[in-house]
């Protein structure tokens, strides 16, 4: 039953309206949670007695870091689906996820640097997390560059899928190798969330923000996958029959 419905919606034509109906809901929920989380994080959560107000960066830093990893895992999942079941939607989902993932990875680096400067006195530390995040960012850029450079969409999807899987295998190896390298060099291994005694409100705000970013990523991906479906299926009859194709064209002529 499950697999049947899965394959039913794996047709781009069927998925297009589903995505179109659902993305606004995810967007609304993401905005609502973001407002709530920011309110808790900026106005309610108390000052940290060690880090002062500077700790408030974690309300974006931790969610975007988590999302950068979750999105890569999601890409690897779709890549695997695409390469095993040969469904066209999988490749489209994979490339729809990548830009949001790249932005999250970049934001994780940016906010990490801004957090590191006041706390460690330096913008950058070669610790396992930051270094792996940097490599993850490069992997996203590589994926986007590769899929954009290939004209044939079928090859772009599959080549991107192979790259995403190879990258997913490599990320843990990179993480542990940097970690080992770091301990050998006696470097700083500081974590952003010192974890010891987080205030209840702080934790709540952080988790709410994390869910908000998750929903945002889903909304963006659904929105973008619709663009990809339209571009790929532009010559089909069902695209011509879409209401948005007609509504705007009559408007353009008159």
């Amino acid at each position, binding site marked *: 039953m499950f697999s049947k419905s899965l394959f039913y919606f794996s047709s781009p034509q069927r998925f297009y309206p589903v995505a179109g109906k659902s993305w606004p809901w995810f967007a609304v929920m993401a905005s609502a949670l973001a407002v709530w989380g920011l309110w808790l994080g900026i106005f309610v959560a108390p000052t940290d007695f060690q880090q002062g107000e500077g700790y408030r*960066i974690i309300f974006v830093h931790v969610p975007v870091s988590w999302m950068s990893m979750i999105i890569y895992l999601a890409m690897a999942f779709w890549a695997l689906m695409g390469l095993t079941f040969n469904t066209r939607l999988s490749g489209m989902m994979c490339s729809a996820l990548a830009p949001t993932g790249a932005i999250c990875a970049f*934001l994780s680096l940016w906010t990490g640097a801004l957090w590191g400067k*006041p706390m460690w006195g330096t913008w950058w530390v070669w610790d396992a997390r930051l270094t792996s995040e940097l490599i993850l960012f490069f992997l996203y850029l590589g994926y986007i560059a590769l899929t954009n450079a290939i004209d044939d969409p079928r090859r772009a999807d599959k080549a991107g899928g192979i790259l995403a899987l190879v990258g997913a295998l490599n990320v843990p190896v990179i993480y542990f190798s940097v970690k080992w390298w770091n301990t050998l060099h006696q470097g700083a291994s500081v974590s952003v969330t010192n974890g010891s005694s987080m205030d209840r409100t702080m934790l709540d705000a952080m988790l709410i923000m994390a869910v908000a970013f998750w929903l945002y990523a889903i909304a963006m991906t659904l929105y973008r996958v619709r663009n990809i479906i*339209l571009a790929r299926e532009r010559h089909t009859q069902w695209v011509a029959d879409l209401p948005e194709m007609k509504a705007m064209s009559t408007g353009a002529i008159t």
Partner: protein
Amino acid sequence: MIWHSFSDFWAMGGYAVYVWGSFGMTAALVWAEIAWAKQARRKLVQNIQAERASVALNATDWR
């Protein structure tokens, strides 16, 4: 509410640059991503419409 005044809020206990730098960049990129996706969609729909219109036009002309 933990802030006593507006300037207090902006100052973020001396961490203003770092905190607002993080939140600001996040907001900017989220906004940019949304704008970019929306613009891509608008362009795409226009392109497809133009293509269809030209196909229809040429079909009648050549007859």
